[in-house]
């Protein structure tokens, strides 16, 4: 093909010259572009191309610099410059000329100028400031094209800080008579929203106007904005559901002008957009979802034509149906659609079908069943993308019974792939599955071996870490020994073979395991054999330095027998002269150990390995040394990032106000508790006084090395002992709970022969070609465990991944079922599923109680938990099972009637008492709050509290729920008001609040049992956050019964943000300094300064933060301020977070530090929000 181009091009010059006669000499610039392109096409090597372009750029440079170049010529030059840039050659000298062209050229030249600018520059480029005035002028131009160009360039890239300058003009364009201008203005504003959301806060009403624009094009453009807004915060836009549904109905019904049709489908892209918006709106919201059922059904029905774009709509429709609150009729149709996709011979549709299936099996694994054969075929598909998607699907339906087959398939794919991305992804998945579902030790170790050899050095580092932790964890019983012993044996045989091909990471794992556990096989073998293998590994050329230090570490642990000692000496001699400091250090240590028998006996006791040991991680024994050194004038320790910071900022961060107390701080014991939170390895290696170890190295080597270090550095470190310490959150004190004690292993029969496969597996879908025996067999092994009577442990997002090697072959199915159900019953996705699960739960309860099998989470435990909840909420008479039935019954009832709608309750209180209150209340209070104020408990009435938030009410507002937060010093008290507005009393009341991230405890005085007619009851709960997070959703369920009525339930949700849990932390500057140094999690960010007339910006900003987030301002010194707060965590506890603020140019540089990982991040978010709101 290129021949043709070349030939054509070779004919060009003559043509161009022909043309130039006609064009009266105007053609010289064009022919230059022609020549350039022709030149490039003729070239054979990259080098020549480079030379040619360099020459070209030189000539362009010369031309642009010449004063005689006209704008018209400049325009052509710019095109050439664009061409060079496209090929990857910098033409930075032309940027300024591009701006000049945009500023000074006529319309057409300006257009090229703008184009060049938008291609050359990025948002942060300073040159762009030169363009602001031009853009402003063009926006105000009367020439439509100029306005269009300006809007286009603005939406492509515009400096964030300059948005205010042009915002009013762009806003104005929303009312422009021309539709195209309005449309572009909407998109430009959307772009502004994306880069600086706070700047366009005030024009949300204008967006609404754009949504209602008479021109459908403008409306379509505004949907971009709404998709984003609704995605971020669906709650605030629920009122738009009706409009969106109406728009979609009109579009689907063909009400739009015919120009909007694409292959006779009305505005397909618009439909797709609307369906996505509906999905966000209807997600987990029954009331909203019900509004859209009809239109979704109509979309599905109308989209049954056979064109690509209708499939796009169908796909979107299916996704929406599965996202919103389920309706069985629609689900059936959607499932059918997915079937059509998967079975389609068109490969793109097959791909999307698999994607959709992957999405829906997370809710109902049985949906994969009808497509078994197709899935099997896809596994062997020639397209890797399809294959990978299929594996993704299989990953989601993996359970304990099919895990071996699925993992085998994944490994097969891994062996063939050479793409890093899929390798990393899949290796992680295999490791996860192996850890979760491994049927036995042998399989587990073998699978992990494959993972390590295939994953090589690209895999996520947490895979080997988790694996090692798993080996080390747990009580030292027979089974753990077996696992370790098997690992040791398997690695021994690997090392005896060819090691050159094993990735370094794998070798490191091997050396660690051998070092720790090879004593397990000591009885029956030559003690030196492991040592010899390690020494051999050490000497091989392909072994990296890092691995060598692991090997040396392992050898250190092993040198107890005379044979090993001799070997160790030999090794030491060679490596004690190594150029690498780490290796040399290791070798020296090993040398000393091998020479000193007494020392050896002390640090490597023959029987002491199993004991749980402890490390004094606070290094308090060094305190004396440190304070001595400090007193002698040594610089205080600075953490690596701190040092880096100092390097970056020349004006080093002044720590003066708290620097004074430093010598004390290190010796004081307040530091010790903080230190335990730290990531220990860096710290230990840094402060244990061992020289020559860069922090970077110890990072790389990860945690396992710590153990070996502790073994031999005991002369210096007062070690009470050693414990395994490479857990992510510091020390792994938590052992597996007694309930999870592994039961003795029973080998599972191979799934291929598994008799457990339900009968439904043998009934193959009738369509499709007659599958051969092999595939049938594969299918039955892959889909074993998926069936209507067998609930499945679904993996992936729905369930937090347990990092435990679960061994529980006994009572497999019953525990699996109960787990699946207890997980999904929280999310209560579908009526059908709920009911199914409910019955499943009951079923498994009976199964379990009959069988008496005590597994990890038995149904009894689940019911016990429910029971606990209810009793704690003050309803002790309800029995566990009964309670569930009650909760289940009304749920489906509500679904049918659509009773629970989130409507603000109307308080129709007729109580004379409250009437009276109304008059006495202070004028500031909102009258609507009043009736409830009187119900505030006396002990809370003096405290700061939030407004009353209506939660939900039922249809006739006979029952209304509202909430109020009271900010107590040591807790957040959540009050739920239950107002009964009918004459009859409510009975069997039970209030249940659930949230994973929160710790909720009920402190109501009297048990909540019934609410009399026309009265209000308050439930008090104290709430604290378990982990810092920006915002959490609290789900509540109130079940009650009216006299003569059915049991009913009302669901509600309430969002609590981090700032409700923050309290000021009053500390002195000195204490602040101490704490600052001991906290390890930190974060830096620049924030906006608040400016007021009569205050310094810093003071104003800090005051704003103090007011909104309950912070304590410790001190303000010059342009710096220090602020502290704590996050409530249980009575008398709190996690501190410190802020160091400093005015830097026009912004506030904030540095947050805390001992808890997520707190700085979440707090920063709220600071940002608080400042943008002011």
């Amino acid at each position, binding site marked *: *093909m290129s021949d043709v181009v070349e030939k054509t091009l070779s004919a060009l010059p003559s043509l161009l010259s022909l*043309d130039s006669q006609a064009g009266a000499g105007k053609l010289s610039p*064009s022919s230059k572009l022609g020549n350039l392109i022709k030149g490039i096409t003729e070239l054979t090597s990259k080098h020549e191309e480079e030379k040619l372009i360099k020459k070209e750029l030189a000539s362009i440079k010369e031309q642009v610099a010449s004063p005689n170049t006209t704008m018209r010529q400049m325009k052509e030059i710019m095109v050439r410059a664009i061409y060079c*840039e496209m090929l*990857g050659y910098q033409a930075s000298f032309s940027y300024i000329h591009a701006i000049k062209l945009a500023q000074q050229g006529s319309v057409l030249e300006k257009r090229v100028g703008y184009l060049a600018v938008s*291609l050359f520059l990025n948002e942060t480029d300073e040159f762009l400031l030169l363009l602001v005035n031009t853009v402003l002028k063009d926006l105000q131009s009367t020439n439509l*094209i100029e306005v269009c160009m300006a809007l286009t360039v603005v939406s492509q890239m515009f400096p964030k800080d300059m948005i205010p300058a042009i915002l009013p003009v762009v806003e104005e364009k929303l009312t422009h008579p021309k539709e195209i201008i309005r449309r572009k203005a909407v998109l430009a504003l959307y772009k502004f929203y994306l880069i600086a959301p706070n700047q366009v806060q005030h024009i949300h009403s204008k967006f609404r106007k754009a949504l209602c624009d008479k021109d459908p094009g403008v409306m379509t453009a505004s949907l971009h904005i709404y998709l984003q807004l609704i995605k971020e915060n669906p709650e605030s836009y629920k009122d738009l559901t009706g409009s969106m549904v109406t728009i979609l109905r009109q579009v689907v019904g063909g009400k739009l002008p015919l120009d909007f049709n694409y292959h006779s489908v009305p505005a397909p892209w618009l439909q797709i957009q609307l369906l*996505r918006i509906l999905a966000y709106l209807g997600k987990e919201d029954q009331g909203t979802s019900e509004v859209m059922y009809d239109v979704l059904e109509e979309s599905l029905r109308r989209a049954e034509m056979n064109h690509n774009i209708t499939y796009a709509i169908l*796909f979107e429709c299916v996704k929406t149906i599965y996202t919103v609150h389920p309706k069985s009729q629609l689900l059936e149709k959607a499932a059918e659609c997915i079937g059509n996709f998967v079975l389609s011979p068109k490969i793109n549709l097959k791909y999307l079908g698999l994607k959709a299936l992957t999405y829906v099996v997370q809710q109902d694994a049985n949906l994969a069943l009808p497509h078994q054969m197709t899935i099997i075929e896809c596994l062997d598909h020639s397209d890797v993308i399809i294959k990978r998607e299929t594996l993704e699907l299989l990953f989601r339906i993996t359970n304990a019974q099919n895990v071996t087959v699925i993992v085998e398939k994944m490994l097969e794919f891994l062996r063939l792939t050479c793409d890093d991305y899929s390798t990393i*992804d899949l290796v992680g998945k295999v490791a996860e599955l192996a850890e979760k579902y491994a049927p036995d030790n042998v399989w587990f170790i073998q699978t992990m071996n494959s993972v390590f050899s295939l994953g090589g050095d690209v895999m996520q580092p947490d895979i080997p870490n988790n694996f090692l932790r798993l080996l080390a964890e747990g009580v030292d019983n027979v089974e753990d020994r077996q696992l370790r012993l098997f690992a040791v044996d398997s690695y021994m045989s690997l090392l005896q073979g060819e090691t050159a091909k094993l990735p370094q990471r794998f070798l490191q794992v091997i050396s660690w395991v051998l070092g720790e556990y090879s004593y397990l096989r000591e009885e029956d073998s030559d003690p030196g054999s492991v040592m010899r293998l390690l020494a051999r590994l050490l000497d091989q050329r392909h072994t990296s330095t890092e691995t060598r230090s692991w090997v040396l570490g392992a050898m250190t642990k092993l040198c107890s027998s005379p044979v090993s000692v001799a070997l160790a000496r030999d090794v030491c001699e060679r490596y004690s002269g190594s150029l690498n400091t780490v290796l040399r250090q290791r070798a020296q240590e090993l040398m000393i150990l091998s020479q000193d028998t007494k020392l050896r006996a002390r640090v490597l006791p023959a029987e002491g390995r199993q004991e749980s040991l402890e490390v004094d991680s606070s290094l308090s024994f060094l305190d004396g040394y440190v304070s001595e050194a400090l007193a002698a004038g040594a610089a205080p320790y600075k953490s690596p990032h701190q040092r880096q910071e100092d390097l970056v900022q020349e004006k080093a961060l002044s720590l003066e106000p708290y620097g004074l107390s430093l010598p004390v701080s290190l010796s004081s014991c307040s530091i010790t508790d903080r230190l335990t939170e730290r990531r220990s390895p860096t710290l230990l290696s840094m402060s244990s006084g061992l020289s020559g170890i860069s922090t970077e190295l110890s990072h790389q080597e990860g945690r396992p090395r710590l153990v070996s270090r502790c073994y031999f550095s005991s002369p210096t470190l007062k070690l009470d002992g050693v414990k395994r310490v490479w857990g992510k959150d510091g020390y792994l004190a938590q052992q597996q709970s007694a309930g999870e004690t592994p039961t003795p292993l029973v080998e599972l029969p191979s799934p291929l022969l598994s008799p457990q496969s339900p009968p439904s597996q043998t009934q193959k879908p009738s369509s499709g070609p007659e599958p051969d025996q092999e595939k049938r067999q594969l299918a039955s092994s892959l889909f074993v465990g998926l069936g209507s009577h067998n609930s499945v442990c679904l993996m992936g997002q729905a369930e937090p991944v347990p990092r435990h090697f679960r061994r529980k072959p006994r009572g497999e199915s019953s525990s699996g079922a109960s787990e699946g159900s207890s997980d999904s019953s929280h999310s209560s996705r579908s009526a059908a599923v709920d009911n199914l699960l409910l019955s499943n739960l009951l079923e498994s309860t009976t199964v379990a109680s009959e069988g008496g099998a005590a597994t990890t989470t038995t149904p009894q435990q689940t019911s016990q938990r429910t029971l606990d909840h209810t009793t704690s909420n003050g309803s002790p008479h309800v029995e566990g099972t009964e309670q569930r039935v009650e909760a289940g019954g009304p749920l489906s009832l509500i679904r049918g009637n659509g009773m629970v709608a989130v409507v603000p309750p109307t308080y129709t209180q007729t109580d004379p008492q409250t009437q009276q209150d109304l008059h006495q209340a202070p004028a500031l209070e909102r009258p609507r709050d009043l009736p409830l104020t009187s119900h505030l408990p006396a002990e809370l009435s003096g405290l700061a509290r939030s407004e009353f938030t209506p939660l939900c009410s039922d249809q006739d507002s006979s029952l209304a729920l509202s909430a109020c937060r009271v900010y107590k010093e040591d807790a957040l008290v959540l009050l739920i008001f239950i107002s009964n507005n009918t004459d009859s009393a409510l009975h069997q009341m039970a209030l249940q609040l659930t949230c994973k991230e929160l710790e909720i405890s009920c402190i109501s005085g009297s048990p909540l049992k019934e609410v009399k007619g026309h009265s209000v009851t308050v439930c008090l709960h104290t709430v604290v956050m378990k982990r810092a997070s920006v915002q959490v959703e609290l789900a509540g369920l109130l079940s009650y019964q009216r006299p003569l009525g059915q049991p009913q339930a009302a669901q509600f949700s309430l969002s609590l943000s981090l700032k409700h849990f923050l309290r000021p932390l009053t500390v002195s500057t000195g204490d602040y300094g101490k704490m600052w140094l001991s906290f390890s999690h930190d974060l830096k960010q620049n924030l906006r300064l608040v400016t007021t007339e009569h205050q310094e910006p810093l003071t104003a900003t800090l005051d704003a933060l103090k007011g909104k987030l309950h912070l304590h301002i410790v001190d303000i010194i010059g342009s710096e301020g220090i602020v502290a707060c704590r996050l409530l965590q249980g009575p008398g506890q709190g996690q501190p977070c410190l802020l160091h603020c400093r005015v830097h140019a026009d912004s506030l540089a904030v540095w947050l530090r805390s001992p808890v990982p997520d707190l700085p991040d979440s707090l920063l978010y709220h600071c940002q929000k608080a400042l943008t709101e002011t």
Partner: protein
Amino acid sequence: MIKAILIFNNHGKPRLIRFYEYFAEDVQQQIIRETFHLVSKRDDNVCNFLEGGSLIGGSDYKLIYRHYATLYFVFCVDSSESELGILDLIQVFVETLDKCFENVCELDLIFHMDKVHFILQEVVMGGMVLETNMNEIVGQVELQNRMEKSEGGFSAAPARAVSAVKNMNLPEMPRNINIGDINIKVPSLSPF
């Protein structure tokens, strides 16, 4: 959001590059190379979507591409775009090019890079789909061209040159090569 639009030929030579998110120059070139490497390996009978890759930002991103004769049209999008929707948008874009250039071919893209950019600006603006109706797009482009004509005809010259090449019966052309091959045949919406 559309993150980038890349057009390159069968040899990986870029013909039009448009990024809607900032990447440094060398990263851009690397993205182009890697994308070409990924796309060119794929047969015509496999699906038009490519996932992940470390290219533009990981698992959330997708490459959606179509191959026309000598050119690959690759759209790099995030998860907020519909795969099939973008696939048809590429078709719309190419059909529009075909209409504007009358039997568009690779040469048109080379010699009228600026024009192609202008057409693209009417389809995708700042990463957002602006217009999907071909007639509208052509209308907008023509509106701008009308002004171009009033400003003087020099820039029409290369267009004339190319169409001359296209319509010419070049005797020196090897017979076995069909000149029609240069054209990016716009199929009337193939069944994928």
